[in-house]
């Protein structure tokens, strides 16, 4: 019997189309994962070099020219180390904690638009999706601290989850202004709306939100000066004290992916994503030939540099002081920003 008799040509076409779509998405996933992980590896290298030079030393120099292969050496070392599990640990939970953490961070890469029309899943509630996944990441931290059956890890887990939850609120509120201006939760739409606005990037009209977001982003990723959960002088290494080998590597990767994510989110919501402000293009018209992803990556790395810069500069907050900043300063300021944005929007509507 002929196959064509059973399946009509139109169905075949539809199937082929579906297959191509799936293939494209898979290809995108592979590209994003490969490049994302490579960036994570080199983000550590970049960090060590930047901090090294800030501290009048050289950073990694031994593996490869200028230590360029150091991230791979570290990775190989971590993956071949002995995997130690504490005797009294809750084994199953101990196993899945880093996986939850890592997965929650990586999933977010799927909604990040790296360039116009280059995003794995262009969903309507992109921003909310990121928040939801950040909320899931807390579980990885929390149950890893609990499952290790160590008091340091436990306290680190408690601190960290309290920190992430409270700063998530501030961060969410700081982005509400952006949503109001863009009128959408779709990340690509936000970028487009920004590119078309008179300021070119929302960091200028939304500067209050921008400042709140930057602080909250640093806190959300547990970086100095808010690295309390892993404050090595108090809690040794915080929630992953008992982890070793590639489970530790998973946490490490997850943390850096979270950093990439925060930097991307900042780029998308405040710095204009892959677009350049129109006034810049007017002065340097040739810049429009540069692919958008270059600008995106540059902005992300600028934000990274900022991360490293503050790490090399400031001491660490105490836990209660830090919570006070979140609840008593950032959240009220962010709410004020929302009111202000709404007010300005109404006034402008009336004027125009």
């Amino acid at each position, binding site marked *: 019997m002929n196959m064509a008799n059973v399946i009509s040509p139109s169905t075949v076409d539809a199937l082929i189309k579906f297959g191509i779509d799936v293939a494209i998405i898979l290809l995108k996933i592979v590209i994003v994962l490969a490049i994302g992980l490579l960036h994570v590896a080199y983000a550590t290298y970049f960090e060590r070099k930047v901090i090294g030079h800030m501290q009048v030393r050289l950073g990694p120099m031994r593996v490869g020219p200028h230590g360029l292969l150091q991230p791979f050496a570290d990775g190989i070392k971590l993956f071949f180390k002995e995997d130690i599990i504490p005797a009294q640990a*809750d084994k*199953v*939970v101990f196993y*899945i904690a880093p996986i939850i953490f890592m997965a929650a961070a990586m999933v977010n890469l799927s909604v990040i638009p790296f360039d116009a029309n280059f995003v794995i899943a262009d*969903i*309507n*509630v992109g921003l*909310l*999706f990121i*928040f*939801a996944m*950040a*909320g*899931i990441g*807390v*579980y990885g931290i*929390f*149950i890893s601290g*609990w499952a290790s059956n160590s008091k340091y890890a*436990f306290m680190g*887990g*408690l601190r960290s*989850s309290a920190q992430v*939850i409270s700063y*998530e609120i501030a961060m969410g509120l700081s982005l509400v202004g952006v949503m109001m201006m863009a009128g*959408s*939760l779709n990340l690509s739409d936000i970028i487009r709306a920004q590119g078309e606005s008179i300021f070119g990037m929302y960091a200028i009209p939304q500067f209050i939100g921008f400042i709140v977001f930057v602080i909250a982003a640093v806190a959300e990723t547990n970086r100095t000066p808010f690295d309390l959960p892993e404050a090595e002088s108090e809690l040794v290494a915080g929630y992953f004290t008992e982890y070793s080998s590639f489970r530790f590597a998973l946490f490490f990767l997850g943390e850096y992916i979270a950093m990439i994510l925060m930097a991307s989110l900042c780029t998308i919501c405040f710095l204009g994503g892959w677009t350049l402000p129109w006034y810049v293009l007017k002065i340097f018209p040739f810049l429009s030939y540069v692919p958008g992803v270059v600008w995106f990556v540059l902005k992300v790395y600028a934000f990274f540099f900022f991360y490293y810069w503050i790490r090399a500069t400031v001491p660490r907050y105490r836990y209660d002081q830090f919570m006070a900043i979140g609840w008593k300063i950032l959240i009220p300021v962010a709410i004020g920003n929302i009111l202000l944005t709404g007010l300005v929007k109404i006034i402008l509507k009336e004027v125009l």
Partner: protein
Amino acid sequence: MVSIGFFIYFAFAIVVLSLLVVTRKNPVHSVLWMLLLFFHIAGLYLFLNAEFMAAIQVIVYAGGILVLFLFVVLLMNLREELSIGKYTTFGPTGFTFALGLFVAVSMSLSSFIAAPPGKYSIDLIKQETHIKALGKLLYTEFIYPFEVASLILLVAMIGAIVLAKRRLKS
């Protein structure tokens, strides 16, 4: 076809996960099963074209409320609490009540009728996006219930703070 298959999977998984949640001895494991349960509920919302609801479900329930559960559970000394044994001694009574409730619900299920669709049809929502539709409704038609609800939440929050403060002083 496909969507029905997914629905059956989600519905079934939700039932099984709920049972797992209430039967686990270790509260932390219960909480983790509950996390998975919330994801499945969010999945159901997605099939109803309610992405916003799905996202909010995960953010509020999984990201907020469940974490608070976890806080409470973790701060207890599990090893000792577990040795206490059963928390309740009213097993048969509880079971009877649950059965009665189940019968009542299943009997009344057939009497449910779909509400009139109103102006917010699926097409309109798709065109206007979920969030805008929801926002418009909440802030125009249902502004009073919305404000009352927020007031109640505020009272609860202030109450919690007052209670905590009093304990701090003593």
